[in-house]
């Protein structure tokens, strides 16, 4: 196809045309939080990634205004939810008369590093997400009801726990017992779905860095999750985000907390191995 030769020049012209209409952020900006914590928003791709050399945080694709919100915890709207989670941390619930604080006496700080390694394989050989761990504690230790997978209380609690790992490198295990789940996630990532017949990789691997109508496509990394979105003014979970992307391509989303989304979560986390945990991030 001779067309492909034309494409590059045509593309450059297109970019020039766009320049005036969208306030693009500086993709080279550095993320420093509270003027003290430097976040690596780019890293060398992990060895298992075949088609990408450099991995990048979703933060670098946002506008300067959105980026700024994540640079100071006083400006970051996600901290309203972190505070909600701190209250929940101390709140007694369930038949055992306990709160998180009853057992975890050192506070949420005890979980520094946990989010950087999630999801992981549990003692029975199943893939478990942080959300499931929180619910297991609620049910088994507190005798309390599990929270809904993506509801505000759960999203806030996983944000509070994730915050304890902020600044640490993402490092999920993909070998051993995790391997079959990882393979499943990878397969789903590259599978085209929906009436539009598009895969996650078509947008987030083949086209990151370009505009898709009003959206600047990122690599779809999850190192900042759960994330506060300006669009809906709440904490958004990974599975909630996957659901949104699937609906946009007119596909029936998999179930939140189901095996498909858990596998995709592991696979996506592994695509970010080497990036820094940014939870709780801010997106548009």
């Amino acid at each position, binding site marked *: 196809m001779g067309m492909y030769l034309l494409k590059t020049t045509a593309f450059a012209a297109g970019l020039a*045309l766009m320049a005036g209409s969208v306030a693009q952020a500086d993709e080279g900006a550095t993320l420093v939080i509270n003027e003290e914590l430097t976040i690596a928003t780019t890293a060398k791709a992990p060895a298992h990634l075949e088609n990408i050399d450099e991995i990048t945080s979703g933060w670098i694709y946002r506008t300067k205004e959105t980026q700024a919100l994540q640079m100071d915890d006083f400006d970051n709207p996600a901290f309203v939810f972190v505070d909600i989670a701190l209250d929940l941390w101390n709140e007694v619930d369930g038949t055992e008369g306990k709160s998180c604080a009853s057992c975890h006496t050192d506070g949420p700080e005890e979980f520094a590093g946990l989010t950087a390694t999630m999801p992981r394989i549990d003692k029975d050989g199943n893939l478990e997400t942080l959300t499931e761990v929180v619910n297991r504690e609620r049910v088994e230790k507190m005798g309390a009801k599990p929270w809904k997978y993506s509801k505000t209380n759960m999203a806030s609690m996983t944000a509070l726990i994730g915050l304890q790992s902020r600044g640490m490198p993402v490092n999920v295990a993909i070998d051993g017992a995790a391997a079959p789940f990882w393979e499943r996630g990878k397969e789903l990532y590259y599978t*085209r*779905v*929906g009436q539009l017949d598009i895969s996650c990789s078509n947008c987030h691997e*083949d086209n990151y860095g*370009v505009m898709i*109508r009003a959206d600047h496509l990122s690599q779809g990394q999850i190192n900042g999750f759960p994330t506060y979105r300006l669009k809906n003014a709440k904490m958004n979970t990974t599975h909630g985000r996957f659901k949104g992307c699937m609906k946009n391509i007119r*596909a*029936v989303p998999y179930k939140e907390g189901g095996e498909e989304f858990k596998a995709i979560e592991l696979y996506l986390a592994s695509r970010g191995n080497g990036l820094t945990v940014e939870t709780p991030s801010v997106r548009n």
Partner: protein
Amino acid sequence: MKIIIATAVATVLGATVAMAGATKPQDVAFEDGAVAVSVSGTAGDAAVGREVFANRRLGNCLACHVNSDMPELSFHGEVGPPLDGAADRWSEAELRGLVANSKQTFEDTIMPGFYIDTGYFRPLDDFAGIPILNAQQVEDVVAYLLTLKE
């Protein structure tokens, strides 16, 4: 019962008559990616096609393509090449093929096939078994693309 059946038959006939000239998505004949005859059986309307091109619920072509014929609309996507001068590069039949099912021209492209009703996986119920655009909308978009000359 009889009355209900009679109405049902009438409805089906009505639909058949209206669609008489249209080719079903699965019957569209591609030759090297191109489709020679109108899939609706009638000519397209370029003005309507311009709307279909921009509309987020219809073609949403602007999601992926810059088009300087539409400076009044912001946010032109960059996933595909700009379509300025598309009619200088492609014939009518080639453009029809590109809109109906661009995978016949570009294998593995991200660009959706706009006139296919099978071969995709897990569509939302509202979109199952139907193409993104109907036959006349395909022709309208093709008529519009033919106006994009440099």
